[in-house]
């Protein structure tokens, strides 16, 4: 049976409850099996047989993972599907050669999806909590689905690697279920 790997990038223990547990709750509600691993402890064994991996986000100042982004080099040849949420999206962008820039967005925003993206279409309300972003327009391997000056939702052109700058565990929870059903 499919088992999703949730990768926790929070250094702060309290942040787990805000950024990982809500995703666990969505998976439980949808009867999707999962396992949670700290990003420092992810090994080849953890990735073997996992068809879907979610790299969760963390708080605005909890950025230790950015100093150790090479721990995510497995993304370059992982054959499964990956969804990076906020900090997890930064990780994907950095691994594929992107550069971190500053942009603060906190709270609800409306984003327009011209094309369907993991079940989202047209205008959607999303929840943002970030000080950074990566301009995925500079990465030729990626398609940018929503680019309200800041890349909000992206997908690798040849592989099933997705990134969202917003937090679907707060608004648009269905996106997580749709990703896990791929």
């Amino acid at each position: 049976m499919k088992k999703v790997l949730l990768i926790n990038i929070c250094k702060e223990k309290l942040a787990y409850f805000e950024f990982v547990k809500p995703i666990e709750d969505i998976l439980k509600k949808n009867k999707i099996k999962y396992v949670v691993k700290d990003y420092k402890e992810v090994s080849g064994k953890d990735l073997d047989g996992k068809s879907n991996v979610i790299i969760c986000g963390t708080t605005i100042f909890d950025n230790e993972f950015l100093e150790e982004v090479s721990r995510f080099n497995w993304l370059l040849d992982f054959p499964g599907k990956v969804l990076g949420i906020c900090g997890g999206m930064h990780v994907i962008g950095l691994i594929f050669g992107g550069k971190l820039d500053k942009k603060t967005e906190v709270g609800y925003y409306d984003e327009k999806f011209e094309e369907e993206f993991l079940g989202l279409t047209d205008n959607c309300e999303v929840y943002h909590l970030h000080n950074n972003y990566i301009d995925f327009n500079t990465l030729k391997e990626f398609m940018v689905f929503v680019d309200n000056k800041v890349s909000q939702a992206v997908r690798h052109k040849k592989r099933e690697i997705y990134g969202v700058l917003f937090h679907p565990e707060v608004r648009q929870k269905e996106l997580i279920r749709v990703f896990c059903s791929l």
Partner: protein
Amino acid sequence: MAQRKKLGILFSGGKDSTLAAFLAKKLGYEIGCLITIVSQNPESYMFHTPSIERVKEQANVMGIPLVVVKTKGEKEEELDDLEKAIKKAIEDYGIEGIVSGAVESVYQASRIQRICNKLGIECFNPLWQKDQLELLEDLIREKFEVIVTGVFAEGLDEKWLGRNVDKGFIDDISKLKEKFGISISGEGGEFESLVLNCPLFDRGLKIVGFKDYGEGNSLRREVELG
């Protein structure tokens, strides 16, 4: 071993902020102070109001310093007062982050986040998106003694004031959820609560008197503690 981060708890004396404080302590964080905003506006969008003055007794039995700032409770002005309170907590107690009991309210959580971001400190919301039933069951499992101090929704009347949050409470409020669609944890402002005892307190607090205000389905209880 990493140094424990010193945090300020945005504290109303109700179940959510006290449970958030409990979690922070349980995970090894140091609680530098409690921060309470006393709003003179009972309709405040941001802050809990019934029995808010009781935070002094709660802070006392927790042995934790309390920073209190009063606000007129006008919509955006109260955010300036919250920022002043957090700045005072940083200056006086050296806190490096805030913990809030926000569960669902993006209005509340995003405003606290923006202030913390501006001041360069962390903001933790350990109850964020938490299942309402799980939240109430956590309180019971961790031996929190919680009473209702305000009701503000159809189906909730004077009989609910002073009621303990226990298994019977969960059963009864779940029936009201079926009938009126209210949040069982009061997340939509349906009720407010006061913690009389929990593992953070040296001793339990006793109610020695109370006075009720309001009518119908909009009532609040001001309690006197001993």
